[in-house]
C-alpha cells in the first residue's frame, strides 16, 4: 500500500514537472543524413556540468559514430580500436582556429579524453588517413538532438520560454530561428550547402 502511494506521488511529480517543460521538434531538410539541432545560449542562465562521457571510436579507419552532439563542458573520450596508429586533431571549434588541438597518437585499445568548453562544430580529422572525418557538435545548452536520417528531431525537456534554435549539418550553413516553447515548439529548417 505504501509503495503505491509513493508511485502515485512520483507520477504526479513528474507530470507537474513536464507541465512546465516542453519539446521542440521539427524537420531539417535540404540536406541528407544526420543533422544536429540545438538551443543557443540563454542569457543569464547556466547549466550544471554534464557528467556523461561519450566515446568516439576509431575503427576500420573511421570515426564512429560519425556525428556526436554534446553539451558544452562535456568530456569526450577518443578510443582507438584499430591495429593501426591514428591521430585525432581538429583545426577549429565553431570555425575558430584558436581552438584547434592535436591529441596525438595512441595505441590500440587506449583512450584519450578532451573537455569541450567552447560551443560549435568540431571537425575531427586524422592526419595519416585524410579520408577519416567525424564531427562533435558542442551545444551551449543541454537542449539538443541529433536528427534521424530523414532529418526529424525532437528536443525534450525544454523549459517554456523563447529561444534561438540552430540547425547544423556537415558542410552546410548553420541556420537559426526563434522558437517559443509553451508545452510544444516547432521549428523546421531548410539548409543549404
Amino acid at each position: 500500500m505504501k509503495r503505491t502511494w509513493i508511485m502515485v506521488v512520483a507520477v504526479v511529480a513528474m507530470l507537474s514537472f513536464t507541465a512546465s517543460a516542453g519539446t521542440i521538434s521539427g524537420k531539417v531538410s535540404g540536406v541528407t543524413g544526420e543533422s544536429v539541432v540545438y538551443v543557443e545560449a540563454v542569457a543569464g542562465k547556466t547549466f550544471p556540468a554534464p557528467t556523461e562521457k561519450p566515446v568516439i571510436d576509431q575503427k576500420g579507419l573511421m570515426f564512429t559514430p560519425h556525428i556526436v552532439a554534446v553539451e558544452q563542458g562535456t568530456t569526450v573520450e577518443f578510443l582507438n580500436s584499430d591495429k593501426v596508429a591514428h591521430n585525432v586533431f581538429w583545426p577549429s571549434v565553431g570555425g575558430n582556429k584558436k581552438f584547434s588541438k592535436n591529441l596525438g597518437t595512441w595505441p590500440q585499445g587506449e583512450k584519450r579524453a578532451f573537455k569541450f568548453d567552447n560551443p560549435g562544430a568540431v571537425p575531427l580529422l586524422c592526419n595519416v588517413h585524410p579520408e577519416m572525418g567525424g564531427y562533435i557538435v558542442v551545444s551551449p545548452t543541454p537542449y539538443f538532438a541529433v536528427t534521424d536520417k530523414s532529418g526529424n528531431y525532437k528536443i525534450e525537456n525544454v523549459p517554456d520560454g523563447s529561444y534561438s534554435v540552430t540547425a547544423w549539418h556537415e558542410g552546410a550553413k548553420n541556420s537559426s530561428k526563434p522558437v517559443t516553447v509553451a508545452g510544444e515548439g516547432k521549428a523546421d529548417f531548410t539548409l543549404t550547402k
Partner: protein
Amino acid sequence: MRFRGPLFVFSLLLLTFFFATASSFAIPAFSRQYGTSCTTCHVDYPKLNDFGKAFKDAGFKFPKDDESFLKVPPVMLGAPAQKELWPHTVFPGTIPGLPPIGLRYNQFFQYTPASANNYNPGGSTAGPNVPRTDFESGLFSIFMAGNFGSDIAFWVDDDLSVSGANSNGGLGDGYLKFVNIGRVFKLPTDSLSLRVGQFELDLPFSQARSINISPWDIYTQANIGFSGSQNVNNVFALGDAAQGFEISGGHQYAGYHYSLAIVNQNTSGTSSGAPNVSSPGGFFSDSNYKDIYGRFSYRFNLEKDSASRHEVQAAGATGPRDHTSLALGTFFFKGRSVQRIDGDTGVLTAREPFYRFGGDFSFNYRTFNLFGLYMYGHDDDLLLNSGATGFTPGPAAKFNGGFLEADYLALPWVMTILRYDRVQSSADFLSQSGGVNYFSPVGSTRNRVTPGVQFLIHANIKAAFEYAIRPQQALVYDSNGKALNAFRTNTATGMLEFVY
C-alpha cells in the same frame, strides 16, 4: 656496330625511359577496397611510406587485422571450414570483392634549349633534331593487385598504350607472391616468401615506384663496349623486368631484408643484323643458364622511444609518421650476355659473363629522405680469334656510377627533390669521342643535377616538374683544345598524371 647511330641511341634511350618508368605503381584498387586515401601508403605516390612498405611486405594486406579494414568484403571461393577437408577439396581462397583495378595516365611537356641541337656540327642534320618544346602523351596503364587469401598476393600491371600508341605497351610486372611460405618449414614469421613471374628486381630503390620523371641513369645503363676493340653489346639494365622466381624475407620498414632471384638469362644482347643473328624466336632465353640477383639490407630505426621503434610507424606528437632511420644495403647481379656472330665455320655464340655490384644507403628524418646508390658494372669481353673459329678474351668493358637524391616533403602536397646522377663508362666515352655524341634529352650524358618539384593537386593527381642540368659538351675542338659549337642538353620536363 653500325646500329649505334645517334637516332638509334636516341630512340633507345627514349624507349628505355618510357619502359623504365612503366612498371608497377600506386594502386587505387587498394583505396577502393579499404576506403582509404593514397597517403595511407604513399608519401608522394608512388613512393611508399613505412606503412605502405609493411602493407606490401604483408602481401598487399594490412599488417594486422586486415579483415577489419576491408570495406568491401572479399568473395569466398570456399567456406573457410573447407580447409579441414583438404586434400579432398580445393583449398578455400578469396578474391577481392571489387575488381582490383587501378588506372594511371600521364602526359609530358618538355623544353630543351636551342643549343642542344649544336651537336649537329655545322648545321648538318646527321643526328636527330630536337624540338625546343614538345607535348608528349605518356602511359596509360592498368594495375591489378591484391590478395587471394592464404597470404597469396598477386600483381599484374600492363601498359595499354605508351606515347599515345599501343605498339609499345607491354607487361610491367605480373606475379604471384606466396607470402610467408616459410611457415610450412616452421621458419620465423616473414623470413621466407616466394615470388614467381615477371617482376622488377628487388632494387634498393624501386624504379617503378620512383617519383622522378626521368629514371635514375644507372638503372638504364647498358654496357656496350668500345666499337672495334670490345665485342660487348649487353643491353641489360638493372631497371629491366626479369622473369623467374625470387625468395625474400625480412622487412623493408625495419631490420633485415634479403632477396635472391633466379631469372632468365639476358639474351637481349643479340642483334638481328649481321654479323649478329637473332636468338631463336619463341623463347625468352636460349639456354639453361640463369642469371642471379641478390640483395641484402639492414635498416636501423632510430626512434628514442623503444615502443615506437618497434612499430610499423613511429608515434609522433602530431600523429604517426615514418621512422627516423638509416638503411644500408648491398646488391649484386651475375649473368651472361649472349651474342651470335657469323664466323667462318658458321654461327658462333659468345656468352659473355658479366656482373653488377653495388651498395646503397637511405637516411630518413621526418619527411626528409637522403639516399644514394653506387654500382660497378663489369662485362667480360670475347673477341673473335684470328681464324674466326672461336673466341679469345679481350679487354673487359666496365662502368660505374650511381646517384644521390634528397627528397623533402615541404608540405603534405609539395615534394621537393634534388638529385645527382652520374655514370662513368669508358666504352661510352670512347665510342662517342670519335663520332656523334651520346645524346638524349632524357638519358643524356649520364652526368647531371636534377632539381624537381611536385604538387599533389589531389591525392591522386600530380603535377611534377624537373630540370636536368648537364655539363657543357662539344663534339669538335680547335687545335688549342677549345670547344667548338658547345652545347648543353639541359631539359625541363613537366608531367601531369592521374591515377584512379
